[in-house]
């Protein structure tokens, strides 16, 4: 038998909004990624191969799950169209499905199964059609049954939609309570309802109240109270005299001293209330903060190269700029207005001037052809706020699907990668080119692309 797990971005859009640091399919439930529960279920149902279908990106999921050899199955990935029906999905994966029986789990919903049941026999004896449904999710079987249903066979199963933070919280707490008896959960521990990961440092005065699940590399400092019903992720520090009860603490989170986290979800510097869906960002890093690797250190070579090249361009165009700018400004051909653009970091904005040059005169045409309208932005490259070449800066305040929280990479630049390419740099096409280069370029190729963008702008403006 084979299994298809199908998801649509629209079903898990709320996860992007509430927990932007994690891919929705890797959202942890009791310290185990959501997708692993589905893979476990597919294996219990007798699947030898699983294919994950999605209309969004699967890069992070693929890096985590790889080819499925960890579970002893063949795991593959494919894309679907947002409006594909189950019939269309089967057609698009005809080669994968072959002549075998296929179980299709569609929708972003949690399967309440019990590992003690014999799902393999049950699935092979069930007639084709819908097995279980919930709002936004369903399990469907295709193909003819290979066995007759034995009377004694019971395989309890239900679906729970994960459509909000409330349902996610409920599913997590339910998984923690039912624990090892129903699911395969990570962690070690001699006592039931108490699972610990590797390298957990617990001070002597810490009090642990069951049920709890604690991830890897966790530090619980003096007099902290953990539980009951606490799920602590990996790389977490709970500081002195703090208590975590009926709460979920995501990976890489620091909980400061003397804090009470009751019935909340803490993720980085965000504290969420699962009942109301409200969330607040803690500005004080001593209360709640994210622990993450230094991204700035990784992007340092690119920033240095960009800053050096920007300095060269500033020096080279200083004389034309100092002559043409006052002329155009006085003649009313140079119009500049302040605007707020999205910065590289999620949730941050930066002020930038929007410059419009009326290229009717000769001086204005030269200024535009030499890209002098971007001259002031070059100084932002030297200060590290902008890249020399990157994404087209997005205006803040607009709700857009390509906003930084939704895309794998966004790096606002003076020039955009789309300008370096010859094909139409408009809308979706421009975004495609920018994402490609953000994933594949390096500081040296960036220099070549800056020259290309400059030449393209020069040719475009000089022909106008």
């Amino acid at each position, binding site marked *: 038998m084979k299994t298809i797990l199908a998801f649509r971005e629209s079903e898990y859009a709320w996860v992007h909004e509430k927990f932007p640091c994690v891919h929705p399919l890797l959202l942890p439930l009791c310290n185990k990624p959501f997708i692993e529960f589905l893979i476990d279920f597919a294996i219990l149902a007798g699947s030898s191969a699983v294919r994950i279908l999605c209309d969004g990106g699967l890069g992070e999921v*693929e890096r985590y799950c790889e080819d499925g050899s960890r579970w002893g199955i063949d795991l593959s990935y494919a894309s679907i169209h947002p409006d594909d029906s189950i019939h269309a999905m089967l057609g698009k994966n*005809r080669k994968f499905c072959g002549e075998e029986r296929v179980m299709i789990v569609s929708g972003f919903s949690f399967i309440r199964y019990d590992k003690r049941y014999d799902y393999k026999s049950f699935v092979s004896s069930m007639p084709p059609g819908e097995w279980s449904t919930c709002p936004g999710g369903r399990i469907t079987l295709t193909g003819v049954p290979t066995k007759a249903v034995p009377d004694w066979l019971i395989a309890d199963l239900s679906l729970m939609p994960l459509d909000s933070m409330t349902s996610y919280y409920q599913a997590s707490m339910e998984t923690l309570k039912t624990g090892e008896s129903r699911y395969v959960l990570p962690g070690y521990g001699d006592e039931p309802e108490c699972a610990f990961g590797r390298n957990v440092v617990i001070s002597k005065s810490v009090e642990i109240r069951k049920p709890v699940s604690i991830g890897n590399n966790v530090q619980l400092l003096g007099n902290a109270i953990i539980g009951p019903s606490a799920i602590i992720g990996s790389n977490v520090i709970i500081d002195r005299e703090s208590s975590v009860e009926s709460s979920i603490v995501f990976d890489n989170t620091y909980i400061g001293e003397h804090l009470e986290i009751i019935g909340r979800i803490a993720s980085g510097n965000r504290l969420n209330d699962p009942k109301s869906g409200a969330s607040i960002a803690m500005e004080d890093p001593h209360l709640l903060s994210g622990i993450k690797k230094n991204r700035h250190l990784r992007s340092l070579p690119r920033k240095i190269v960009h800053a050096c090249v920007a300095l060269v361009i500033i020096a080279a165009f200083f004389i034309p700029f100092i002559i043409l700018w006052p002329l155009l400004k006085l003649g009313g051909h140079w119009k500049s207005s302040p605007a707020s653009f999205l910065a590289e970091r999620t949730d941050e904005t930066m002020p930038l001037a929007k410059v419009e040059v009326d290229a009717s005169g000769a001086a204005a045409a030269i200024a535009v052809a030499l890209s002098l309208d971007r001259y002031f932005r070059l100084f932002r490259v030297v200060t590290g706020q902008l890249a020399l070449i990157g994404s087209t800066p997005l205006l803040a305040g607009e709700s857009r699907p390509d906003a930084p929280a939704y*895309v794998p990479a966004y790096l606002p630049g003076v020039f955009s990668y789309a300008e370096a390419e010859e*094909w139409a740099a408009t809308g979706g096409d421009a975004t495609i080119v920018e994402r490609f280069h953000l994933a594949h370029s390096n500081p040296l190729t960036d220099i070549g692309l800056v020259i290309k963008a400059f030449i393209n702008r020069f040719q475009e403006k000089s022909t106008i």
Partner: protein
Amino acid sequence: MTITETSKIGIAILSLYGTLDALSAPELRNNRSIIDPEKTVVIDLQQVDFIDSSGIGAIVSASRQKRQPSGGIVLACMNDRVRKVFEITNAQKLFHIFDDTTAAVDFASSRQSASA
């Protein structure tokens, strides 16, 4: 890059071999079946070992030339290397992608006869 063109129930199947980049993209762009706005084309990407933004650009602009932008170009047998590039650029949302050429041809044929 080499392009092999075959036809099945009135649907052109272009099998691409090798590298689809800035150098080879014009060859695909200028293909007769691609240029024809009425013709539904299945592009088999199984043997493409490298694709860059120009390659994706050629496929996207090919679909824009068709009378039915979402169904005029159907992609088939996308290997992992190509799929990852489509995913990074979010271009997978623009196309119907099949893991089997026959299924892609069936789909393209049904689309063509529905629009006729």
